[in-house]
């Protein structure tokens, strides 16, 4: 995928000032090469998640343009819904529907959005469930699953519709280190298999390992951006250096 972003602006009502707005993305510019994995890093509140929501087709920016492989994102809700059906998104938590079992969560988009029969859908998810060693949990409700299992099922749900790419918004930040590792391993495996994704994470070691390119987002802009190795080795921007230096070397 080649991502081109020009002049992207997003504003939200400012909770601190009634009637005022806060600018979360401030004329953000970002042009990537033809890559498979882009990782967005940076301080909390810098605009990473807001950017990801726009890329995933969940929010419409106030101004600016976004294009994947030369195709601009639609701006109307019907067009965006069509777009969302071609990609997969995983949030920090509460992805799964608690009244459905893991299996029913996986089947829901296949049956109700992509028009498969329940039998076809069940056939479609069997392989991926086995591949990620989750068959034993298929009949469980989310409340009976661990945090790591929930996130892996959520990633699987995004994956079984065969999306063009995945958007992952801090998928491990609500998990303990052991569960994080199991989810990161799954993402790493997908990376090896050629799945394209854009990931927001604070796991800098992991970012460095899987990213083709890393963009450092702060104050609503892409402050620094480049191939992972270059950014870690050669970035001179002081704020980025400080951020990266907190991370132990691999």
């Amino acid at each position, binding site marked *: 995928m080649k991502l081109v972003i020009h002049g992207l602006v997003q504003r939200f009502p400012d909770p601190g000032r009634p009637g005022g707005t806060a600018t979360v993305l401030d004329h953000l510019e970002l042009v990537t090469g033809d890559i498979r994995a882009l990782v967005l890093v940076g301080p909390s509140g810098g605009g990473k998640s807001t950017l990801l929501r726009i890329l995933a087709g969940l929010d419409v920016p106030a101004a600016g343009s976004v294009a994947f492989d030369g195709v601009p994102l639609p701006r109307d809700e019907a067009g965006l819904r*069509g777009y*969302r059906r071609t990609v997969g998104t995983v*949030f920090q938590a509460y992805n799964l*529907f608690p*009244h459905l079992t893991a299996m029913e969560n996986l089947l829901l*988009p296949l049956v109700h959005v992509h028009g498969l029969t329940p039998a076809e859908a069940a056939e479609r998810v069997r392989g991926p469930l086995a591949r990620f060693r989750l068959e034993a949990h298929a009949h469980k409700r989310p409340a009976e699953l661990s945090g790591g299992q929930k996130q892996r099922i959520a990633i699987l*749900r995004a994956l079984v519709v065969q999306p063009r790419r995945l958007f992952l918004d801090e998928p491990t930040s609500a998990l303990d280190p052991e569960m994080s590792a199991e989810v990161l391993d799954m993402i790493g495996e997908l990376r090896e298999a050629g799945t394209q994704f854009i990931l927001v994470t604070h796991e800098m070691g992991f970012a460095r390992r899987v990213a083709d390119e890393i963009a450092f987002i702060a104050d609503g802009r892409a402050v620094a951006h480049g191939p992972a190795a270059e950014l870690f080795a050669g970035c001179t921007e002081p704020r980025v250096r400080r951020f990266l230096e907190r991370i132990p070397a691999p």
Partner: protein
Amino acid sequence: MPRWLAHTVVVALLVAGVALAFARVDYAWNWAGVWEYRWKFLQGWLTTVGVSLAALLASIAIGAVAALMLRSRSALAAAAARVYVELIRGTPLLVQLLIGFYVVAAAVRLEDRYVVGVLVLALFSGAYMAEIFRGGLDAIPRAQIDSARSIGLTPWQSLRLVVLPQAVRIVLPSVAGQLVSLIKDSSLLSVIAISEFTLNAQEVNSFTYSTLESYLPLAIGYLALTLPLSALSRWLERRFKYEAA
């Protein structure tokens, strides 16, 4: 102690206590006089069942529409629903019935008092339903709506497949309580001369001067409706039960 035994013990103690109280008052029972009017009781009870059932279904529909309006992005729709809810909840049903029947229904030449009675009762109960439903919808985390949108569901699919199944479980106990109230509130329809259970019991009392014999069957008749409703609600709660994740 098993639950059925606990229930039996409590009910037995209650019956014994009430029986003791009745035994101590010097009261000349006249069941024979009231028995004459058994068909009148039955007719009134059936009217109460019919009126309550119609108002119950209508109040759920009204409450659902008003709840959606309360959450609507249209300021006008939200304001209309808010005024409706506050006006109805803030005034006595008695006044609403009298104005509804003698003013509003008369003005639009709606003469069937049963239709008016059901409508007023449904509007009354619908205002409470609206707040219950709104609370249920508000309790669904934002992330659930985001997840539903992210997999490509339409707003209607998201409501039907994701929001409602979770909201139903949340609102069920409150809705059941509101329905029990509605059945008992239907007794006020007697003020616009609807021949329901309470009015008929009052009439039997005035014919026979047997107050307790007229009103005790009334209590039992209402319990015969409300207890199964509570039981149904508890059964549904168990069916919809899942632990929140």
